[in-house]
């Protein structure tokens, strides 16, 4: 029996992984995968999509967003005022209802990603102790494949292993933790700073060499230690880093030092926009962009990749594993504030915020994000993100695409923001315009590659048949907001913005090889310090539902 083929015929195909730049091609799909065209020319597909005149790309991959788990769910509970005024998501015969606002409910999140042509998304900050909760939400987040990164940058077991100079134990623990939690990658958030916050009022670290009390380690040591362990475990996405001092004037030197602290190990610096500020420490009057020197460093060091964390003007919710940042923001904005510390592992801060185009700081943040897109030479190393919902919603991606593809529109936008932005950033001087091919790289091919997902972000045989088909439009925002078709795992799930089918989507996770002898020591650690039993910590396979182990290699 020949397989049931789906054929996408005559589309203008963009597949940067294979150097395909807008060529007319047919794609053949069987069993959820892209396959070679059948050799026997008599074989007919059971369904054909006529894509003549349409643009065909791999499904989008969001490598940094906050869509599941305790922090996201608290933000939902905390912000009914937003949901009350947001357009409702009504139930249909095939879909569940939901709510929007800056933190949509789970079903709404899945539908909206799919509706925009994104087929994979990764939550960037899950406390391992709450991994089970994140998996439960993933099971209620349809249409997209998903994974999450585990907060490890203030994990006390890791800090102790670094303090005691036991890199082998750190490596084994990291392997165990990722496997036990069903996680995808290690995430470092304000390394050491959250532990200092837990110990001291308004506590934080100042720079990479501040010593963390009790553990006698430094942020630099934490970054270096985890990066090495991740490298030795051959994790598909080595380490995802939220630097110290997020959002503070003058923080660019911390960011540069973080890049250096990796000492050549692979590392991804996330929402880099928030970490690229010049100016005097604590002095907002001197606030300015330092993208040029940072992008120069990234351009010259191939071990580094970044995603941007673009800011859009409007109201949103800040949510972070960086507790002192949450406190800082709630005091700046004088808003309600949620903070929660997770034993042995991490912190969390949530506050409503608003970015205003006439506010110099906010306007500079907006410009700095765009500078990053335009100043990193190689689009394979800079990824589209808003750090949803911190800089804005993932639903703003089409708007950002237009800002990158249309310099006239970008200039008009720049003219509407605080005038000092032209002096304090280089945005006014940047003429670069992204091509569709480059947009395809920064929204799908590059994030898939940086995540080590061999079967995503491209359209070659063996790839998951996650495909988005767009109607070309002079306005790229219009084009990217409303895909003609979205195909997930070979199934057409969206047609012209209408959800046709609600598929489940897989959970992507890793199970690195590690030295099992470490478990006795971890069990003792649990006995001494955790409030739950060691045996109740690992997440069972039943929580992973449809899932896929991404190989470490």
């Amino acid at each position, binding site marked *: 029996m020949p397989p049931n083929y789906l054929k996408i015929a005559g589309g203008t195909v963009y597949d940067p992984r294979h150097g395909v730049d807008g060529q007319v091609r047919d794609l053949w799909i069987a069993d959820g995968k892209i396959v070679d065209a059948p050799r026997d020319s008599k074989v007919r597909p059971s369904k054909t999509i006529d894509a003549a005149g349409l643009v065909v790309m791999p499904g989008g991959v969001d490598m940094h967003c906050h869509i599941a788990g305790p922090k996201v769910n608290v933000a939902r509970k905390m912000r009914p005022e937003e949901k009350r005024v947001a357009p*409702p998501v009504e139930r249909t015969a095939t879909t569940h209802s939901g709510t929007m606002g800056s933190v949509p409910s789970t079903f709404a999140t899945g539908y909206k990603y799919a509706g925009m042509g994104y087929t994979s998304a990764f939550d960037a900050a899950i406390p391992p102790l709450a991994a089970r909760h994140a998996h439960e939400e993933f099971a209620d987040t349809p249409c997209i494949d998903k994974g999450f990164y585990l907060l490890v940058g203030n994990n006390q077991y890791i800090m102790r292993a670094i303090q005691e100079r036991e890199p082998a134990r750190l490596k084994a623990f990291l392997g165990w933790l990722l496997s036990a939690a069903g996680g995808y990658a290690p995430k470092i958030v304000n390394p050491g700073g959250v532990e200092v916050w837990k110990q001291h009022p308004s506590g934080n670290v100042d720079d990479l060499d501040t010593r963390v009390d*009790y553990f006698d380690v430094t942020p630099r040591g934490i970054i270096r230690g985890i990066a090495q362990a991740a490298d030795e475990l051959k994790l598909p996405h080595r380490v995802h880093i939220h630097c110290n001092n997020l959002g503070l004037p003058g923080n660019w030197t911390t960011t540069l030092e973080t890049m250096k602290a990796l000492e050549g190990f692979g590392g991804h610096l996330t929402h880099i926009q928030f970490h690229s500020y010049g100016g005097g420490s604590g002095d907002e009057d001197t606030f300015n962009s330092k993208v040029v020197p940072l992008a120069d460093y990234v351009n010259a060091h191939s071990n580094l990749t970044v995603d941007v964390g673009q800011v859009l003007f409007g109201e949103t919710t800040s949510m972070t594993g960086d507790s002192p940042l949450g406190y800082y923001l709630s005091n700046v904005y004088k808003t309600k504030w949620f903070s929660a510390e997770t034993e042995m592992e991490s912190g969390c801060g949530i506050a409503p915020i608003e970015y205003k185009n006439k506010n110099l700081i906010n306007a500079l943040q907006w410009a700095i994000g765009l500078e990053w897109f335009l100043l990193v030479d190689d689009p394979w190393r800079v990824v589209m993100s808003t750090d949803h919902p911190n800089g804005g919603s993932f639903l703003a991606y089409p708007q950002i695409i237009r800002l990158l593809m249309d310099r006239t529109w970008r200039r008009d936008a720049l003219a509407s923001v605080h005038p000092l932005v032209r002096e304090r950033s280089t945005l006014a001087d940047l003429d670069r315009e992204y091509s569709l091919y480059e947009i395809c790289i920064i929204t799908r091919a590059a994030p898939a590659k940086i995540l080590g997902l061999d079967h995503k972000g491209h359209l070659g045989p063996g790839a998951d048949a996650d495909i988005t088909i767009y109607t070309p439009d002079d306005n790229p925002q219009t084009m990217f907001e409303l895909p003609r078709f979205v195909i997930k795992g070979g199934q057409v799930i969206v047609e012209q913005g209408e959800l046709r089918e609600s598929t489940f989507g897989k959970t992507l996770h890793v199970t690195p090889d590690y030295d099992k002898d470490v478990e006795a020591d971890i069990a003792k650690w649990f006995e001494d310090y955790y409030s739950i039993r060691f045996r109740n910590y690992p997440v*069972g396979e039943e929580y992973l539902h449809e899932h896929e182990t991404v190989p470490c290699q």
Partner: protein
Amino acid sequence: MPDKKPSTPAAPSIVADVACTGCGCVCDDIDLVVESGRIAEARRACTLGEAWFIGQADPSPPACLIEGQQAELADGIDRAAQILASARYPLFYGLRHTSSEAQQAAASLADVVGGILDTPTSTHHGPWGVSFQGVGEVTSSLGEVANRGDLIIFWGVDPVVSHPRHFERYSLFPKGMFVPRGRQDRTVVVVDVERTASADEADLFLEVPRHRDFEALWTLRALAADCQLEPQQVLEATGRPLADWQNLMDRMKRARFGVIFFGTGLAMTEGKHLNSEALLAVVREMNAHTRFVAKTMRGPGNVTGAENVLAWRTGFSFAVNLARGYPRFNPGEYSADDVLARGEADAAVIVQCDVSEDFGDQARRHLAAIPHVVIDHRPTETTRAATVAFHTATAGIHTGGTVYRMDDVPLPLRPALASPLEGDLEILERIEMRVRQLQSSAAS
């Protein structure tokens, strides 16, 4: 999660590290000794835990009753679906003694039929939920308290009675990383309207007259900000001399990591959400001086799980109205007790919750007057009065799944016994399937 229905051998066996839902502590270190198909012993369990585990050994009631008569399960499913499919404003309430997986199934069904969806949060800690939306909350997992807490305040809660192992596991006695001597490294304060068993364990007991919690907490806010207060006014407002509150504030500022645990004694007394708002505000403001967190003391079952499930599915954690085809939130208007007391609901589904403890007289009278489905693991007044009653296996005894501790830490349930009865998850899924059939045949 082990198999849903493990075989139960005759020889005693031990199921270790079982999570207990007897109260919001969800102690997960219980060893159950299973003998001849029943739980003979619940090691390390407190009195509430023993009652929960050992009290489950009753003979199984009939799986399904329709109007009090024993019926086939399939007939009960059909009748329940008929009730829901023809209802204009059905109410879903409960979800206390069940897994978050079954809570998801209930939320799904409520969405499909467009009902009200509410939980015991609205009858217990709802005012806290409302004040949390006003000011936020600074909190932590219980293990943080065990490892760091050096000033422990209980306000309007008597854990010796309501959460018997709280002291041992989380708040007073653990020898933690930064409090290595355990109880010796901690100062313990109880604030309540009368001397309680917990007050006897405290270093300092502050008796406050009834309904003066708000005034007391507002006094502390003022003292945290170093405001000058009029002693006589403080005495009249709080029933205690200013010096007592100043003494407490001094201790709070001196603490390295303080915590206030509070209960319905604060949240559900006069002032309601203003009381918890005042408490959450004090705790927030203490973080300008030291580290301080607050934590609500949740009751039995998995109400915290229900809050989480409702929040991720609808965006709101209780009092959700799905009647327009999308979620809306308005406690008071869409709270189950109010919807029933106003005579609005025309059908109801009560899941794993004895509403005689939760609803007022008017609400109970209206419930009795409308067709309603009750899904419970044990026969109660509520199941006996139901139009359709399903008796189910018990989550955490016979079936697995997930439970959320009072601090939102998710834990796996480990079933120790087999049950001939279906789980509530399966019953709810079957009702939904049948409702969808009825809906699509009505549409076509």
